[in-house]
């Protein structure tokens, strides 16, 4: 198998160079078609913010694909000096390429191990290659298998369990308390930049209404306009807290804006259920003693960061089992590929025997013409077919079971010579 990977990633290439080498938008399809037509090979390009990798394959070619050739193309295509490019580029042979793609798709080679985006990006890479017609008999099974391996790793290990962004962890906690959000009120306190992403995630839950309050009414109105909410005067903060189910607090206040005593008064006025407070301000806006896990669930930035670190540490425990799945799947893929490569010789062998059998049976039946009934003829034909199958069973089974190391085709060659099978 003539398979090659040429690329660079966040591990060895600065972002400035990765940006220069990126295949984005129309450059991707043009690049795929250009490589395909110039080198007559299958090609797929994985271009993300963390890596640019070209997967190239050419079936039964006497001239192997080389990394130098592809570097020259990359330099020319992206207007980057080849010598500068070569410092960052890595190249991998067939077996390494398979393992690398399986690891990348399973998110074992990612900046944040276990992140879920990369499998989708690999799928897009494959879809683009399919659309442009640059994926062929080698890349089709390679990418299909890579996606299946990623799925297996995801389901059989806990590598992708949990969230690692603070805003996602915050929303996870909200989901631990509430089941539906179309009857819930979200209160945003302050207009800090840190809260923007969390507010975006909260908006995705489609709450009934969003209230925004800030010491500066203009800022409150601006945030409310941006998230489809309504602004509330700062003086009515306590009333807003009485109505709220979820609170996102991101003020820049140097002291807590909500003491325990003040909050207890608010709790006494509340008729609703649990209130979830996401205090992601530094310094904290809410007194941590407010948290009782029943009437008020308060999660501050330290809690959310702790969960993030815990999730990352947990994911590390699953790396070894995930790597072992990848190793198993690489072996299986190589074995299957080699079996598939024996297909043409098996077909040739069967065709040869089939032709000889028909010739001999035809001669025999011609000689016994008139002396045999139709059932007798059918019986003779069946007997010869059975004999052919019995003869072929051994060699075909041996060939199917044979999975030699690259470069050794002893049994295949022996069969070619023994049965005089031409290419």
């Amino acid at each position, binding site marked *: 198998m003539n398979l090659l990977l040429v690329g660079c990633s966040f591990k060895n290439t600065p972002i400035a160079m990765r940006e220069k080498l990126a295949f984005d938008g129309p450059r991707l399809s043009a690049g795929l078609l250009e490589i395909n037509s110039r080198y007559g090979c299958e090609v797929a390009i994985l271009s993300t913010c963390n890596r640019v990798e070209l997967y190239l394959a050419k079936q039964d070619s006497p001239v192997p694909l080389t990394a130098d050739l592809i570097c020259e193309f990359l330099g020319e295509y992206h207007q980057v000096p080849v010598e500068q490019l070569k410092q960052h580029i890595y190249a991998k042979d067939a077996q390494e390429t398979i393992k690398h793609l399986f690891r990348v798709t399973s998110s074992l080679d990612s900046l944040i191990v276990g992140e879920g985006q990369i499998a989708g990006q690999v799928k897009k890479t494959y879809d683009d290659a399919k659309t442009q017609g640059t994926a062929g008999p080698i890349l089709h099974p390679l990418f299909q298998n890579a996606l299946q391996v990623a799925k297996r790793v995801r*389901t*059989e290990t*806990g590598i992708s*369990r*949990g969230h690692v962004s603070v805003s996602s*962890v915050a929303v*996870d*906690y909200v*989901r*631990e*308390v*509430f*089941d*539906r959000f179309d009857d819930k009120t979200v209160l945003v306190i302050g207009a800090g930049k840190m809260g923007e992403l969390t507010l975006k995630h909260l908006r995705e839950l489609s709450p009934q209404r969003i209230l925004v309050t800030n010491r500066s009414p203009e800022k409150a109105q601006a945030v409310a306009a941006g998230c489809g909410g309504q602004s509330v005067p700062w003086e009515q903060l306590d009333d807003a807290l009485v109505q709220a189910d979820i609170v996102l607090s991101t003020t820049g206040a140097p002291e807590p804006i909500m003491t325990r005593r003040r909050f207890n008064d608010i709790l006494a006025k509340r*008729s609703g*259920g*649990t209130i979830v407070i996401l205090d992601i301000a530094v310094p904290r806006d809410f007194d941590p003693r407010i*948290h*009782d*896990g*029943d*009437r008020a*669930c308060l*999660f501050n930035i330290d*809690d959310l960061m702790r*969960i993030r670190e*815990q*999730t990352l540490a*947990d994911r590390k425990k699953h790396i070894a089992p995930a790597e072992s799945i990848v190793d198993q799947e690489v072996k299986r893929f190589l074995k299957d590929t080699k079996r598939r490569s024996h297909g043409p010789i098996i077909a040739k062998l069967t065709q040869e025997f089939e032709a000889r059998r028909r010739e001999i049976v035809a001669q025999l039946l011609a000689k016994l013409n008139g002396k045999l009934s139709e059932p007798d003829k059918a019986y003779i034909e069946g007997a010869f077919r059975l004999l052919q199958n019995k003869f072929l069973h051994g060699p075909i089974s041996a060939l199917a079971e044979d999975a030699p190391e690259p470069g050794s085709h002893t049994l295949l060659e022996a069969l070619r010579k023994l049965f005089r099978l031409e290419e």
Partner: protein
Amino acid sequence: MNGMPAALSRVTVFCFAASYAIALALELWHAFRPRPIVRYASLGFGAAGLFAHAIYVILQPFPLSSTFGSVLFLALILAVFYFYGAVHHRKLAWGIFVLPLVLGLVLLATAFQPTNGQDEVTSGIFGFRGEHFWGAVHGILLLLAAVGVCVGFLASVMYFVQLYRLRAKISPTHGVRLWNLERIEAMNRRAILCSFPLLTIGLIVGIALQVHRGEAWVGFSNPKVLSSLGLWVVFAILLYLRYAVHARGRQLALWTMAAFALLVIALLFAHPFANGGAS
């Protein structure tokens, strides 16, 4: 039982109790070290237990009026509830909560298992003495109400576990997976709402049957009657707290647990209409 496959007739309480116990052990294993194969094995043992349990109840129909029959039948309905939940809510630690209750009820039943020579089997599942139809209605209504109490109890246990997780700020992806607080509360509410009318009508039918027979009132000294009425009162309090006072989920969960305790007491005593009439 003529013509019945010999293997099925050999099913004992131990068969399904052991299956449930293995299913529970596998569920616990899966909760802390998730493996799909362990999950499927757990479901397999759960299904085997459920099958054996159903066969046992069908082939040896002890009357609902007996402690053994009623508890075993209640455990069977809860085992169906477990299996349905385990299949439909695969990500939740469903079995960890439901299976101990099923196992507990099966073990409770064995304490009242009739010894050889007792003729309870002959009267059938709904074998109440006398007015067969109304007796059966009374038995079924109380049994379904008991199912509701058990579901409410399970929801309450889940509620407290989830409350503990939130209080301790345990990562949502760590430990046993549960529904969110709001959904658990809704499950408890529905269980109470369904059980209360069933319990009320069941008790009214029971009193009417007693009056119809013209027998002397068994009296409040009968522990089964006393605990059943206590159960009804607790349910009435629960509904009052829920809809009139808008009490918090924690308070409702505690009252539901009290209702379950009364149910267990009621189950421990034989029905006053059971053969012999004595409790």
